[in-house]
């Protein structure tokens, strides 16, 4: 699988490239700004683009805007955004336009090499990965809604789901059995009044409702 990376900090770029290679990606292009990123995606049609939110020339949200363009024009390319800090509006912007092949992580997560490699693979496969901090920040904005009906445990499970964990991953994190996790998830889906479609899609919908973007 091919990947491109857009990151203006050289050190971090080298690090991410190494992790990408470790995760089995072939890095087709390394660029430092949004314009070059779009050109590289056009040229290489990678499976994933790893994009810094803040890039030259404006150092504001160039990466987010580029990500929206990429998901729109080249649906085959997933985007994983890296950010120094959490801005939940970016996540909301991204997720309200696209519900798959999107990731939003803090830069510091790159250091957890194996988890980061997992996230890269998941996003490239069309999954959604959100940083736990993004998730908790989105929660701050929620005031009253069906989510209040969830028990604290269910809420924890939902947060981990939003973070892109599988049932096994959630079970490991919470130190419970996988069947317990499945039970929690069923209960969550019921409480959120989600339509019965295929399981994966319901999971995504639950997460989106949780994040307040649908």
């Amino acid at each position, binding site marked *: 699988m091919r990947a491109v990376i857009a990151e203006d900090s050289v050190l971090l770029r080298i690090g991410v490239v190494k992790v990408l290679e470790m995760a089995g990606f072939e890095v087709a292009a390394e660029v430092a700004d949004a314009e070059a990123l779009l050109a590289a995606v056009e040229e290489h049609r990678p499976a994933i683009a790893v994009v810094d939110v803040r890039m030259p020339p404006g150092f504001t949200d160039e990466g987010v805007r580029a990500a929206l363009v990429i998901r729109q024009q080249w649906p085959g390319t997933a985007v994983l955004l890296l950010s120094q800090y959490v*801005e939940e509006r970016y996540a909301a912007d991204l997720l309200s336009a696209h519900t798959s092949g999107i990731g939003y992580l803090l830069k*510091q997560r790159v250091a957890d090499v194996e988890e980061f490699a997992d996230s890269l693979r998941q996003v490239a496969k069309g999954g959604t990965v959100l940083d736990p901090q993004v998730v908790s920040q989105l929660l701050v904005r929620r005031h009253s809604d069906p989510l209040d009906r969830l028990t604290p445990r269910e809420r924890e499970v939902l947060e981990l789901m939003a973070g892109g964990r599988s049932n096994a991953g959630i079970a490991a994190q919470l130190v419970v059995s996988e069947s317990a996790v499945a039970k929690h998830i069923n209960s969550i889906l019921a409480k959120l009044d989600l339509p019965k479609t295929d399981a994966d899609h319901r999971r995504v919908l639950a997460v989106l409702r949780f994040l307040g973007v649908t």
Partner: protein
Amino acid sequence: MHTTARLRRVILWPFQGAGRPVAFLATGALIQLAALVVMALPWIFLVPETWAATLLAVLVPLAALVSAGPSLTEAQRGRFRARLGVHIPSPYEGSRPSLPEWLRSPAARRQLGYHLLFGPLLALAAVFVLLMWAASAVAASIYVWIWLVPPESRLGQVGYTVLAAYITVAGIALLCAASWLSRALARLDTRTATLRLGPSREEQLARRVEDLAESRAGLVDTVDAERRRIERDLHDGAQQRLVSLAVNLGLAKATLGDLPEDARRVIDEAHREAKEAMEELNDLVRGLHPAVLEDRGLDAAISGIAARAPLPVGVTVNLPSRPAPAVEAVAYFTVSEALTNVVKHAQASRAEVTVECLGATLVLVVSDDGVGGAEPVGGTGLAGLAKRVASVDGRLSVDSPVGGPTVLTVELPCVP
């Protein structure tokens, strides 16, 4: 040698420091003389016969003097500076106002009071003192004059030496008096002029307050800018390097599968340390000046604090536009500190943060449902916060009855 020096000192003692006041008084008298000439000008050429003509002959030169008021003030300030080394602050803020503006100002009334009333009176006194100098100098040196006059023309032949001795003594006494009077008069003139030609006390205070407010705002901004610079430097330098280090250690951990157990443990440890250092540096940078605050404003930055807090925090930010950077920073750190206090002391189950703009005031409220009893002065955190709030002319109040709830309200200026 020593004795002559001492003798000279004793003789000159009464006149010590009289030279400058005398020169000063003489220039003052000259300026007033010039004004007098202006006033007298019409009368030199004609003697007005009707009432109207008399009125005109008085009013026209008076009007000329009044309109020359600002220049006269400058001349007088120059006189004080050059002759006495006394600086009378400019009565105007910034440049000199136009004549109509000047005439309407209270400063004009004060200055004209000096030019038309106090100045002439003081000049009259000065002329008297100068005459006194001349007369006493002549009297003190009466023997010289007597000697100069040819003997056949001398008036009295009898006892003139005794009389002359009296006159000499009186002259010396008068010289001392003139010296003292010159200094006293110069002091009186200085006091009058400072009150009348400089800014009034209120104006001085107002100007001082303005200057202080400006310099303080500048200081606050400088500190803010400096914090931001440090934040950027850390972000571009140490932070990136640490991430890179942690990534490399993480890669080593993940890829070097066949390492001996010891080496693996060391790498593990190093990786964890690097990540912890990264976290600590992140916290430090956030404490200096969070990038999110500069980029995205208060709403996003406060949500960030709320998300990191270990208890549920509701955030409502309603601002029509972004306040000044210094105000934003104070608001941000207020919320940060307040929530830290809530977590440490309040035993609350949740907290609420609201920020809104009411007119020109940004009102920030942090409330919790905890145990209350927070001391506004006792806690160093709150005291530091109050100082920070005061640095941008804000106000902080804490309502925290024992048993709760605690409500912290901060009002900050917010120019829309």
